[in-house]
């Protein structure tokens, strides 16, 4: 059997190393072509993961298990289920777009830029595929390094502050998680996730481990109030960095909830305090951060806040403990992967021409860039959650699930639709419509072919998922049901005789 999962992890990493080895600053062309070939190959090897995926089982598929560090019984153990497989595809797809998007834009140290994205893409795939906690941890932490460099080298004016803040925030959470991992190892004698799923733990222990895991994943999601690194990192990151950050890395935080917190700590997760806590934080993210997004003067900051608000819907969906809510959350994650990538690429298109992403510097762009205005319209609508776009599927499912739990939760969650429409469309209006604001806007030229196809690809993805979400939801359904059944079972420690 071809080890598709290992290929999806190692092909981009090897491609990245090759770009570094062959590409030179003086010869950016070669670096770009190798990077594109590498990204394309990385995407192609992930396709069999979807094609050969068996929707009817919740068991791990494409499993590979080899000895890695026998001293600690750590295995190179990878496998995917319905929850993780889509993210690997999403990641490979987005990486391809990012390499393509940086084609003419990045002119300084091209080889390092391309290599950083490719290597990070491999690490991210590894994190989604890992079934051994230490393997997961290695990928989870290692991806910080390329991201740190991407923000720091190619970012904007305040990039150093943003890069270090991003790094330290994430590191704090993951180090606490490492302590929790070691504790679980002490208890179970294994680092395998499936062993931990069946490990009895007292409620107090579960709560403490919950705190550690929460610190790691909530920072990554990011949830209010540990979200402040994201709005700082985004405006400073280059377009590609923003795209990967929003479309992929945030998803790893949410994925951590499903892979680690819910199945390992079911009793803590279902305890009324935690549920209330999580729902409250999620709703604060949805409503309060929605309002914060409304007043942003910088487009990238606005989209960053909108990401936090959208991720609030995701975590809300998870902690409603229904198939609808969870699938809604997952659909929202994938949709947000497309939409936020598209929104950041749109801002990138403007930034490449004007070198600013302040809303006030624009106005009347529709007059000079009609094609661009049309694309951005579609993506703004998707960001606002308009039916028939991908943004609608997830939010609708989550709100539907929330109604069954409590009307007011659903009401507040639904506010996100209104707020989302308000901040996105208001931004759109100020940037795109109106009189031509200044001479720079008048001098703008419309999308070139590369940009057109880039945005076009994402537009297709957004529309397909909005109109026909079945292929996406079908893949995850059985795994979600299985996860919910597992979470419903208590694993409180039996009193020792």
């Amino acid at each position, binding site marked *: 059997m071809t080890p598709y999962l290992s290929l999806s992890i190692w092909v981009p990493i090897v491609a990245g190393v090759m770009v570094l080895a062959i590409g030179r600053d003086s010869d950016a062309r070669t670096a770009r072509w190798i990077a594109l070939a590498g990204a394309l190959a990385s995407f192609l090897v992930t396709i069999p993961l979807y094609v050969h995926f068996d929707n009817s089982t919740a068991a791990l598929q494409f499993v590979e298990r080899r000895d890695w560090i026998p001293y600690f019984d750590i295995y190179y153990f990878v496998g995917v289920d319905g929850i993780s497989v889509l993210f690997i595809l999403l990641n490979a797809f987005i990486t391809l777009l990012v390499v393509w998007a940086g084609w003419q834009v990045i002119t300084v140290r091209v080889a390092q830029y391309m290599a950083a994205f490719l290597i990070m893409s491999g690490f991210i795939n590894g994190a989604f595929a890992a079934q051994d906690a230490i393997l997961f941890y290695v990928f989870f932490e290692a991806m910080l390094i390329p991201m740190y*460099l991407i923000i720091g080298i190619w970012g904007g004016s305040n990039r150093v502050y943003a890069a270090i803040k991003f790094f330290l925030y994430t590191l704090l959470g993951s180090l606490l998680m490492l302590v929790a991992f070691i504790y679980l190892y002490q208890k179970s004698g294994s680092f395998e996730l499936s062993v931990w799923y069946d490990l009895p733990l007292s409620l107090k222990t579960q709560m403490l481990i919950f705190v550690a895991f929460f610190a790691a994943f909530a920072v990554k999601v990011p949830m209010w109030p540990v979200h402040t690194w994201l709005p700082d990192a985004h405006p400073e990151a280059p377009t590609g960095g923003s795209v990967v950050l929003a479309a992929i890395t945030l998803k790893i935080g949410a994925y951590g909830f499903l892979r680690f917190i819910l199945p390992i700590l079911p009793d803590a997760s279902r305890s009324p305090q935690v549920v209330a806590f999580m729902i409250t934080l999620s709703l604060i993210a949805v409503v309060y951060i929605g309002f914060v997004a409304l007043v942003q003067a910088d487009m990238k900051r606005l989209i960053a806040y909108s990401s936090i608000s959208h991720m609030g819907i995701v975590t809300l969906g998870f902690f409603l403990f229904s198939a609808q809510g969870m699938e809604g959350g997952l659909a929202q994650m994938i949709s947000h992967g497309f939409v936020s990538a598209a929104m950041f690429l749109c801002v990138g298109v403007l930034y490449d021409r004007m070198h600013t992403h302040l809303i006030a510097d624009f106005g009347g762009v529709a007059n000079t860039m009609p094609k661009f205005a049309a694309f951005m319209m579609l993506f703004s609508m998707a960001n606002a959650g308009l039916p028939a776009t991908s943004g609608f599927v997830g939010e609708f499912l989550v709100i539907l699930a929330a109604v069954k739990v409590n009307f007011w939760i659903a009401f507040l969650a639904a506010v996100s639709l209104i707020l989302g429409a308000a901040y996105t469309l208001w931004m759109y209006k100020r940037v795109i419509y109106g009189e031509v604001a200044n001479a720079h806007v008048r001098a703008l030229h419309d999308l070139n072919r590369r940009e057109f196809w880039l945005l076009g690809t994402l537009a297709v993805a957004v529309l397909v998922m909005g109109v026909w979400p079945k292929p996406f939801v079908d893949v995850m359904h059985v795994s979600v049901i299985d996860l919910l059944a597992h979470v419903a079972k208590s694993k409180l420690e039996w009193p020792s005789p």
Partner: protein
Amino acid sequence: MALALNFLPILPEIVILTAASLILLIDLWLPDDKRHISYWLTQLALLIAACVTLRGLHIDSVLAFHSVVVADMVADVLRMLSFLALSLVLFYSRTYLTLRGLFRGETFVLMLFALLGMQVLITANNFLTLYLGLELMSLALYALVALQRDEAAPAEAAMKYFVLGALASGILLYGMSMIYGATGTLQIDLVAQSLATGEANHALLIFGLVFVVSAIAFKLGAVPYHMWVPDVYQGAPTAITLLIGTVPEYAAFAMLLRLLAGALGSPETMMQWQGMLAILALLSVTLGHVVAIAQTNLKRMLAYSTIANMGYVLMGFLGGDVNGYTAAMFYILAYVMTSLVSFGMILLLSRAGFEADRIDDLKGLNRRSPWWAFVMLLAMFSLAGLPPTIGFYGKFMVLQSAIKAGYLWLAVVGVLAALVGAFYYLRIVKLMYFDDPVDTSPIMVRADTRWLLSGNGLVLLLFGILPQLPMGLCYVALVQSRYF
């Protein structure tokens, strides 16, 4: 049997001693432009010693010279690692020493004597042998620090090192005399036996233990016995800093192992030293990392980083079983490998009249040479304990050992301190990658240094991806030497 002395266990020591004496003599007849003969002879001696050690690798422990010397697998491994580290130190510092007029026979001879001291310490089975080795090592190191005798900073550093080091030696002797009083023997395995029978005077024993632990903490540079570390690291010529920061760490680990795990490893004394090590570890990791943030001198910053790292070694060691000792030994191994790179980079960037020891001197290294920036990046992330570098597994094993021993709080403090530490390691990466270079002169490197330092950097990554080999090596060595 008692008369027939077995010289095989100390063959590597004999090789080094002979070589040191020979080089001392040969160097007298060499003109200044032929000093590289002494240099290559030193390297040859290290190679022969390594081959001899490997050839006579001890699967089981052997006692020799009326049991004052023990040759076991852990001693062999530590000796081999010391030879390797010293050889790399010599390779990396050749240009630096030449440019500063230190490329002389004395330097090599003193280094070999320091190494001999470490070897004696590593193979000690008697308190006096151990003390002898420690003193031989320390005296040679004091002299090495003071080699640039015309300059103020090295002289000051050597003075501080000597005075405080002598004090620590006195403390160690005092502690050993207490333990002798309590158990009636100086021999490490007999001390352990005497403790096992429970006949030893408890109060006297604990009194001695406190002194012994203090002396070990001094040699490791753990807080609050760390005062000498920053001054010596900063004041000594960088080549000597590289030496002090790397090779003696193996000997310090041997001292920790022989004294605490070997002699004083009975359950009740272990409980005592576990508590002491926990406090030392706590203070070292917090103070070391926090103070390092304020440093602008790279060598001084790395000195505080050493202090913090020794805290992690103690955190692993206090596990008090083979798992904990393995963690500590692996951590030392990872730390020495990484330090060789980080100090090696300072040597590589220095030129005549330019020390490259301010952190600002690293600015824009990525523009000047992406490869060396990457190697330094690996070293920094390894010190910060981030995967995929060897440093991560060091941290991981140490935390695992502390948690297993029930010191969960210490592990939590350890990771929080590591977060603080990550900040200043990241700052180095920031200077290298995000800032523009101030100094744009091309980096000139000897070919052997280039290959070895690059290889050394890649080893950090290689063992970071596949750590089983060094882990297994430490574990097997300790188990074969019966440190359970």
